[in-house]
């Protein structure tokens, strides 16, 4: 008996063409993965690869107007004045074209005798004295967009471990970039600096007390006015600067609030106890648990019972990393213990910055 088997026709040209699908670099990497672990490694390298927070300057909890001084202005970034230079920081909409950024940080000190400034940000270590992924021998890349209103200005970056983002009693020696100093032009330009971390050596104090890796943008020089714009700053593992990682703004705000929160228009009530009713325990959980118990400042509060509004000449409130705990005031008159106290905070700054 004869059996006839028919098979569908195969177009060899189409089959071969399908083998040449444009998978791209990441697709090729995934196709080459031999194990599940390889696949996860490949995918994870795209998520949260930027170790810096607020690198595109979308979060300005302290306000977007000029803020002289050496403290933080935009979230997670602070200026380091040289000598007695007064620095101003503004949110700017001047950004590099076609890169998807909305804001940049403009930092300036334009007096002829100003000595300029450096800019600092930081990455929290897992614990005091624990380097985490910043191990000796690992490669890291810092990239950002920058331009200068003045000609012939320069930029360099160095990294180091420290107790706080600026100063502190415990610091490692700084790590210089491989590229060294580069000129900053008056046009937006992307700068890349590579690092191989050395064996950490204490410069001051003890390495067992360092708590962050600082990123220091070195710019200042004697008697040189400065006016620079910065955005899209990224610190990532490896020797390659990848495109800036944009995270959801809610995520970015949460990340910032681990270190600083500006709370406004919040109320809390408590039963007075101590100091003729001027003190009490207030239980109020923060929206985001902070790095450590924060310092409380810029406290503006209305202080009242059901019958009377008091003027508080001084207010202190103690904290934990999770929330407010106790309240101390000096009121215009003693409220006593009869009525519960209602506190309405119009502003309250909480800082657990490094």
């Amino acid at each position: 008996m004869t059996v006839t088997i028919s098979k569908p026709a195969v177009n060899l040209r189409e089959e071969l063409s399908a083998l040449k699908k444009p998978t791209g670099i990441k697709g090729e990497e995934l196709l080459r993965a031999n194990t599940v672990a390889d696949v996860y490694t490949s995918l994870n390298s795209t998520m949260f690869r930027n170790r810096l927070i607020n690198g595109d300057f979308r979060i300005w909890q302290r306000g977007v107007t000029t803020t002289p001084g050496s403290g933080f202005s935009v979230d997670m970034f602070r200026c380091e004045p040289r000598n007695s230079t007064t620095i101003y920081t503004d949110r700017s909409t001047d950004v590099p074209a076609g890169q998807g950024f909305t804001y940049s940080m403009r930092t300036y000190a334009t007096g002829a005798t100003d000595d300029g400034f450096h800019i600092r940000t930081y990455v929290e270590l897992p614990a005091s004295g624990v380097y985490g992924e910043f191990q000796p021998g690992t490669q890291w890349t810092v990239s950002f967009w920058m331009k200068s209103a003045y000609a012939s200005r320069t930029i360099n970056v160095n990294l180091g471990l420290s107790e706080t983002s600026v100063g502190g009693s415990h610091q490692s020696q700084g790590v210089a970039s491989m590229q060294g100093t580069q000129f900053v032009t008056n046009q937006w330009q992307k700068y890349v600096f590579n690092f191989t971390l050395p064996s950490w050596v204490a410069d001051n104090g003890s390495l067992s007390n360092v708590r962050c890796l600082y990123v220091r943008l070195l710019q200042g020089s004697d008697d040189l006015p400065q006016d620079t714009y910065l955005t899209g700053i990224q610190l990532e593992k490896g020797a390659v600067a990848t495109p800036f990682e944009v995270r959801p703004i809610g995520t970015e705000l949460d990340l910032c609030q681990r270190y600083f929160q500006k709370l406004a228009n919040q109320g809390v009530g408590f039963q007075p106890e101590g100091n003729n009713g001027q003190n009490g325990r207030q239980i109020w959980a923060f929206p985001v648990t902070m790095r450590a118990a924060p310092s409380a400042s810029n406290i503006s509060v209305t202080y009242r019972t059901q019958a009377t509004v008091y003027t508080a000449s001084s207010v202190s409130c103690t904290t934990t990393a999770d929330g407010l705990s106790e309240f101390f005031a000096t009121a215009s008159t003693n409220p006593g213990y009869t009525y519960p106290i209602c506190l309405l905070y119009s502003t309250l700054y909480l800082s657990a910055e490094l």
Partner: protein
Amino acid sequence: MTTNELTYKILKNSDDVEVGIAVSNGTTIPLDPANSDYQLFLDDINEHGASIVEDEISESIVTAAAEKKFAIQLSAYQKAVARLTQYLVSVGRPEIKAMVPNGRKVLNVETGEMQDVLVETITQTAIDPLPATVQIWQGFPESVQVTVANPAIVLDETQRAAAQAIIDATPQEVKDAA
């Protein structure tokens, strides 16, 4: 927060427990060693003394400030000692040779045991002393050549003097812990 001329007041709750520090600039600092302002508070005590705090400071705060001061002094002392162990650039250093195992072992027929093969190796290279003086050009627009002390030797001596000053000022208990 700057620590210039700040004064502090310890906050106690109705149970007489210390719960924070009120600063004269309106900030409240928690008693949390991880808080950066608390560390500045300890620095302020170490620099200006306990008089910057209105009330008597508790033993725990005194201890925290003392431990921080001790750690800083110990680190500075170790760094200064390490600086002084470096050779004097005005003197240089000699070459030192020693017999060092080269990684091979041979059988010692007398003892019947394997033993290292030793070879003479330079363990410290020689460095010549720098000249005590160098000649430089001074003056403008009329320049003249003058002889001055070698700047590298001056820098070395300055740094060594600074290191020695740190060592001299370090309390004995810190030196003992090094």
